[in-house]
C-alpha cells in the first residue's frame, strides 16, 4: 500500500513538473499577486505622515489662519501644499477644475476674511464671558457685530475614497480648532491684560495603543506585509483547486482513470497520493511567500515580515488550509465532466471564496449578511487562524476551532467526492 502510494505521489510530481501552465498558476501567479497587491496596499497601511499628497490651497483669507494652515500642512508632511498652477495664483474655479479632472485629490478653499471673522467671534465670546463675570466694561461686547458661520470648502476628486476624505477633513478640522483654541487663550490674555503668561498648549490627553505583544520589546505593527503574506498565501493555496481539478478531469478523459479503477489499488490510495502531492505544493507555496516577505520585500521598500517564533504555528495552519483546498479540488474534479467546466469554475470559485473570506475586504467592514456568509468560507477560517497566530499571538488552543473546521471541510469534500464517484459508476 505504502509503495503504491509513494509511486502515485512520484507520478503526480512528474505530471506537475511537466505542466508548465500549472506551475505558473501554482507559483508565479501568486508571487506576482502578493508583490503587486502588497505594493499597492502598502500606502493604505501607512500613517498619513508618509503620504505627502499634493493638494491645492486657494487663499482668499490672506490672514493669520491661511498662514498657519499653509505652514502646518507643509510642516507635518501629510500634504504638499500648492498655491500656484503654471505660474498663476490658484482661484476657486481653477482648483475645482483641476480636482474634478482628477489631476489633484483635494483643493481647500479658505474664505475671505476668515481670520478677521474668527478673531471677532472669539473676541466677542471672551468679552461676553468677562462681562458675565463683571470683569470687563459691560457695553464692550454689545458693540461687536454678530459674526456669521464661515465654511471652508473642500473639493475632492470624485474617485477619492471616503476614508481619505474623512482623514483630510479631520486633519483640517484639527488645525483650525487648534488655531481657534489659541485665539481663545489670546482673547482672555488680552482682556485680562496679561502679557507674560506662557500657555501650556500641549495635549493633556495622549493615546497609547496596546497590542497583544506587550511583553515583547519589538511589537508587531499591522502593515501591508503582515496582512498580505498570509492572505495571499491562502489565496495561492486555494488556487491549487484549478490544476488539481483539471488533473482529475484529464484522468477521466484520457482513460487512465479507467485503467486505475481496474487495477488492484484502493481508490483512497489514489486520492491520498494527490492529497499529499498537492499538500507539498501548498507548503512550498507558503515557504516561497514567507521568503518573499522576509527577504525580498525589505529590498522593495516594504516592511519586513515579522514572524517572531510563529513559524511552526503558521506551518500547521498552512497544512490544514492546504487540506481544505485539496478536498475542494478533488470534489470539483470529480464532479466536472470536462476541463472547460473545471478550469473557469474553479478559478471563479476561488475568487468568490477569497472575497467572502475577507482576503480583500476585512470581514468587519462587510454588510451583516456577508459577514454571516464569510463564516462558512474555508478561506475565512484559514485567514482568521493566520491572523490569530501572526498578529494576535494565539496559541494552538485558540486556533483549534479553525483547524477543526478546515479538517472537517477536507473530510466532507473528499467523502462527497468518493460517494459521487461510486454512485456515478453504479449507472
Amino acid at each position: 500500500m505504502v509503495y503504491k502510494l509513494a509511486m502515485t505521489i512520484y507520478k503526480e510530481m512528474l505530471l506537475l513538473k511537466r505542466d508548465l501552465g500549472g506551475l505558473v498558476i501554482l507559483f508565479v501567479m501568486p508571487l506576482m499577486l502578493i508583490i503587486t497587491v502588497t505594493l499597492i496596499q502598502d500606502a493604505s497601511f501607512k500613517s498619513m505622515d508618509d503620504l505627502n499628497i499634493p493638494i491645492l490651497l486657494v487663499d482668499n483669507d490672506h490672514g493669520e489662519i491661511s498662514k498657519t494652515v499653509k505652514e502646518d500642512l507643509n510642516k507635518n508632511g501629510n500634504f504638499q501644499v500648492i498655491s500656484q498652477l503654471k505660474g498663476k495664483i490658484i482661484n476657486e474655479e481653477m482648483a475645482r477644475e483641476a480636482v474634478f479632472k482628477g489631476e489633484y485629490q483635494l483643493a481647500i478653499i479658505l474664505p475671505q476674511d476668515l481670520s478677521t471673522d474668527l478673531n471677532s467671534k472669539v473676541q466677542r465670546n471672551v468679552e461676553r464671558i468677562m462681562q458675565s463675570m463683571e470683569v470687563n466694561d459691560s457695553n464692550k461686547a454689545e458693540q461687536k457685530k454678530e459674526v456669521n458661520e464661515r465654511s471652508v470648502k473642500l473639493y475632492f476628486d470624485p474617485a477619492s475614497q471616503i476614508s481619505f476624505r474623512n482623514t483630510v477633513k479631520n486633519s483640517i478640522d484639527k488645525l483650525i480648532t487648534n488655531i481657534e483654541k489659541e485665539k481663545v487663550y489670546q482673547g482672555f490674555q488680552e482682556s485680562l491684560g496679561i502679557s507674560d503668561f506662557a500657555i501650556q498648549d500641549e495635549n493633556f490627553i495622549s493615546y497609547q495603543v496596546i497590542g497583544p505583544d506587550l511583553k515583547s520589546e519589538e511589537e508587531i505593527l499591522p502593515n501591508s506585509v503582515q496582512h498580505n503574506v498570509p492572505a495571499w498565501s491562502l489565496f495561492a493555496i486555494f488556487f491549487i483547486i484549478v490544476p488539481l481539478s483539471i488533473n482529475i478531469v484529464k484522468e477521466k478523459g484520457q482513460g487512465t482513470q479507467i485503467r486505475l479503477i481496474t487495477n488492484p489499488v484502493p481508490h483512497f490510495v489514489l486520492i491520498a497520493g494527490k492529497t499529499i502531492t498537492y499538500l507539498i505544493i501548498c507548503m512550498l507555496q507558503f515557504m516561497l511567500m514567507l521568503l518573499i516577505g522576509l527577504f525580498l520585500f525589505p529590498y522593495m521598500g516594504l516592511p519586513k515580515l515579522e514572524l517572531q517564533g510563529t513559524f511552526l504555528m503558521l506551518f500547521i495552519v498552512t497544512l490544514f488550509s492546504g487540506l481544505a483546498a485539496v478536498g475542494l479540488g478533488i470534489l470539483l474534479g470529480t464532479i466536472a465532466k470536462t476541463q472547460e467546466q473545471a478550469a473557469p469554475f474553479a478559478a471563479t470559485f476561488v475568487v468568490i471564496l477569497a472575497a467572502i473570506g475577507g482576503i480583500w475586504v476585512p470581514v468587519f467592514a462587510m454588510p451583516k449578511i456577508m459577514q454571516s456568509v464569510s463564516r462558512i468560507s474555508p478561506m475565512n477560517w484559514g485567514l482568521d487562524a493566520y491572523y490569530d497566530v501572526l498578529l494576535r499571538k494565539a496559541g494552538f488552543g485558540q486556533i483549534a476551532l479553525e483547524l477543526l473546521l478546515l479538517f472537517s471541510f477536507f473530510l466532507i469534500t473528499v467523502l462527497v467526492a468518493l460517494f459521487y464517484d461510486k454512485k456515478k459508476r453504479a449507472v
Partner: protein
Amino acid sequence: MGSKAIIIQNLSKKYRNAESFSVSNLTLEINRNEIFGLLGPNGAGKTTLISMLCGLIKPTSGKFIIEGFSYEKNAVDIKKMIGVVPQEYALYPTLTAKENLMYFGSMFGIKGKELKTKVQEALEHVGLDKFADKQIHTFSGGMKRRVNILAGVLHQPSVLFLDEPTVGVDVQSKNVIIDYLKALNQQGTTIVYTSHHLSEAQDFCTQITIMDKGEILTSGTPKHLIESVPNANNLEDVFVSITGKALRDGL
C-alpha cells in the same frame, strides 16, 4: 468450473433512464487459454459486457465468475488477475513510455529490479525500447497502442480484456500487436477481445461470439461459424447475414 476462465450466468444491464437492456440475460462460458472474440455492431452491448467483467460498472442482475472469483467477495483478487486495455490511449501523455509502464506496473505490486526488467523486456518485445524515455504525446498512434497494451499486461494477467486494440493503427503496428498478443496467449493468458476488424478477428480468435441488442446471436470457432451460414466465405459474410445490413445509428 475446471477449464473455464469466465462463467457468466443470466447477466443483465439496464442503464438508468434507458428504455431497453444493453445486456439482456446473457449466459456464456469462456475457456482458459482461449482467444475469445466478442463481435457485434455498434450498440450491441460488447463494451457494456466487458465493462461489467472489468468491474467498471455493476450489473443490474445476474452474476459472473472470473477464475473462480466474484467481484462481490473477491474484487481485489480479480483485479490482480485481469488485465484491461481500454479502447482509448489510457496513458499519461506527458510521462515517458517507461514512466507510464513503471507506474502502472507498480500498481500491481511489481517492484524494483523486477519492474525495471519487465518494462525493458516488454518495450523490446514491441520494438519501442529506443523510445522508452520519450514522452507519450510525441508517439504515433501505433506506438501509443503498443504502450497501451503493455500497460495492461506487465503483470502477466490470467485474463486479458482488450477493447479494439488495433483501431487506427497501420498494418505494421497491427502485426506487432497481434503477434505480441498471440505470444501472451501461448504463455497462458486468456484473451477476451472486441473488434470491428472482422478479418483480423477471423485470423486471431479461437472462439467467437456475435451479439446484438444485448443478446448472443451465435457462438463458435471462426471455421464453424463460416460453415454454418450458406454461401459465406468469411466472417464478414456471417456477421452481415446474422446482424443484417441496417445502420445502427442511435443516441
